[in-house]
């Protein structure tokens, strides 16, 4: 049953990684402009040549 020790601690550490990722996202201003990102992803700088011509 001592496997439980390892499991519990590992699970908390993994959750801790997600917390760190969340803080990193906020710090990087990823929540500052939610609309912009959704538009920017659709741009394809060369789409004129490839698709429309």
């Amino acid at each position, binding site marked *: 049953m001592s496997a439980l*020790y390892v499991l519990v601690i590992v699970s*908390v550490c993994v959750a801790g990684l997600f917390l760190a990722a969340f*803080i990193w996202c*906020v*710090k990087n201003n990823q929540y*500052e*402009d939610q609309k*912009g990102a959704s*538009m920017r992803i659709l741009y394809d700088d060369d789409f*004129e040549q490839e698709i429309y011509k």
Partner: protein
Amino acid sequence: MYTIEDHDTVVTRPNSKVNLLCYHCGLPCITNRIVIEDKAFCCQGCKLVYELLDENGLCDYYKLQSHPGLSQIKPIRSDKYSFLDNEDVAKQLYKFTNGNYTIVTFYIPGVHCSSCMWLLEHLGKVNAGIIESRLNFTTKEVTIHFSKNKISLRKITELLATIGYEPYISLDEANKKNTKDYNKQRIYKLGVAGFCFGNVMMMSFPEYLSHDTGIEQQYAHLFRYLNLLLAIPVFFYSGSEFFVTAWKGIKQKMLNIDAPIALALIITFTRSIYEIAGNTGSGYLDSMCGIVFFMLAGRVAQERTYKSISFHRDYKSYFPIAVNVVTTNGIQSKRLQELKEKDVVQLHNDEIIPADAIVLKGKAYIDYSFVTGESEPVTVMQNEMVYAGGKQVGTSLTIQIIKPVAGSYLTSLWNHHSFSKNKQGQNDAGSAIHILSEYFTWILLSLAAGTAIYWYIVDPSKIIGSVTAMLIVACPCALLLSATFTNGNLLRIFSNNGLFLRDATVIEQLGKIDHIVFDKTGTLTQNSEKQFTCSGYSLTDEEKDILYSVTCSSKHPYSKSIVTWLGHRDIVPVTEWKETPGKGLTAIAAGKKIMVGSGEFLGIAKDEISNNNAAVYIRINDKIASFHSLPTFRKAVPQIIPALSERYKLSLLSGDNDNQKAALVNLFRNQSELLFERTPMAKLQYIESLQKNDEKVLMIGDGLNDAGALQQSNVGVTLADDINNFTPSCDAILDAERLAFLPGLLKLAKASRYIIGLSFVVSIVYNIIGLSFAMQGILRPMIAAILMPCSTLSIVIISGGATSLVAKCLRLSLKTKDSI
């Protein structure tokens, strides 16, 4: 002697004859002469933008959205941005510079679609000096990295202006430093609390489920100490703001709402440590983390801010960053802060007078509508005063400053004491929540004392256990949560319906209003659309064509108004066209003699002129028509005024003359007070006098002239045609298109008090259940852990459900609007 016939005819603008839409901006094209290939443009400006983009291979701009551009019909003066060549001025705008590599951020109000974004992020294709540009769509700010050796700030600004994205540069923008990190701290705290709360809950489950048998001792230790470890950041980091505010309150000898929460947190935490260390139990760390997490979540929901709206603007937002000063070495741009008395300033069309001054040269035709509420521009003679905030219309003007910027008539309004008070703090202190929480704290403390005395007599060993349990379970978090979640949901509903509040404390104030004061110009009436009514002789179609031909080449504002009123017409050859400045026009067309101008110019008797009070007269041969220019009322006004007058006292406070008094009396009936020609200061004082009679005043205005009244009133609402436009500082901004929703929104604000009350009653019920356990000394961690999320959840559901239900009954929109 000419007689003016008695019937009034209101003529609507005829539709444009051409249905072609401009390829660039989507406005109807008046002529079909401006064409490239199969693309038509409404004006040379739009065509120019297209050519520029086409040359640089940026025509994808038109593929992302159709007609994405902004109308270019107003040409931009070529030296408008010459002040940016002055390095001192430019420096104020730089975010970073090392002499060459420079970063600058501009606020661009015109940004509205994905095409805008695409174009602004591809500026580097137009000029190689621009290294990178990135747009924050939410705040409408573009950050441009550029090489100063290759392109100047002025060139960049001019490039932005030519492609239709003119940046807004004002004194205030330049002084503003980065204030973005303000609410990030709270998000971090929320994240940490959420993480710890989840894990603490998970590790508390074995203990809940096994309370009869008890789990194996070794695991109990592991879970309890891990819980304690996880609770430490919640207590010291996430919960820190409760302690700080509670301490601030106590220092001012006030028990604010955070005081009992801080007390509950401290007691829960110390008792849990005591239990875990003494190996007597698992403590209440799960409940504590939960409280902190939900409370922070509620506060974040309530504090959602509108990133692109500013509520704290003063005159500085309207003033330019620099002005053109005439010196012995020619014209130089000078920063506004350096502007001194006796400086001679040159103003161009549409520029704002920076300080009170005297007209030296040029035709001063000043639009004070934003400052005083007068709807018509006024002509100012040489050597007469012009006041700060007025806008020059027409040709350029030379003025001499006689007062410093901060001492002018307009800016002195901001020295009034009402501008120094903190409205948010005041609202907060007077809020029902705070008063309730104070009672709550005292009742709780006396109950705790009562329980302590009881157990002292019956069984002294149970005193500490039951009293601490009481304080843990009865923390007023449910009360606070009911307010924060109701307010958060209300803020969302309000913003979906076009009303943007500065903060949640405004909701309660809005619910208490009993007197509404309206401004006239720009609030009840529309600035952009003037209703031209023609009385007297009614013109035939042929005569309208003639009139169009005569007036279309004149630059006078009235001629332009007549041209727009006539709409698109055919041109008739005109001979002997002559304009006498300040008087009027004469011409001969189709064998008829036409005169357009003032009454004196047309030779109309003086008493007739003063009776008629028309803006401009037209004489065709010997028939006379007179034009009155009246601002039109907003569409919603005729419905909302009667609807509001049933429940509220109404007043009108106008800076304009009483030209429209008859229509207004008709609208407001007789019960309301209608005041005209009030100065900004008089407006403020009127609000003050109402408040002395214990009335709660809602002021609805729009311009700087209302700034004082908006500030003094209990709730100041600014009506804005474009919410991203510049509005004076206020408590709330209402989208002018949604004016019709105002009565409903006010009802909703009123209802919010009952909703908070209802959820408060529910939270009291939970408190009583919890307290009854606690007072008997049998509160188990599991019961606490069940009660806490249950009460929270039910309160969130009740407050959210009730606000949405009420909003639906009032026919308010629940869907999110895309613009913010």
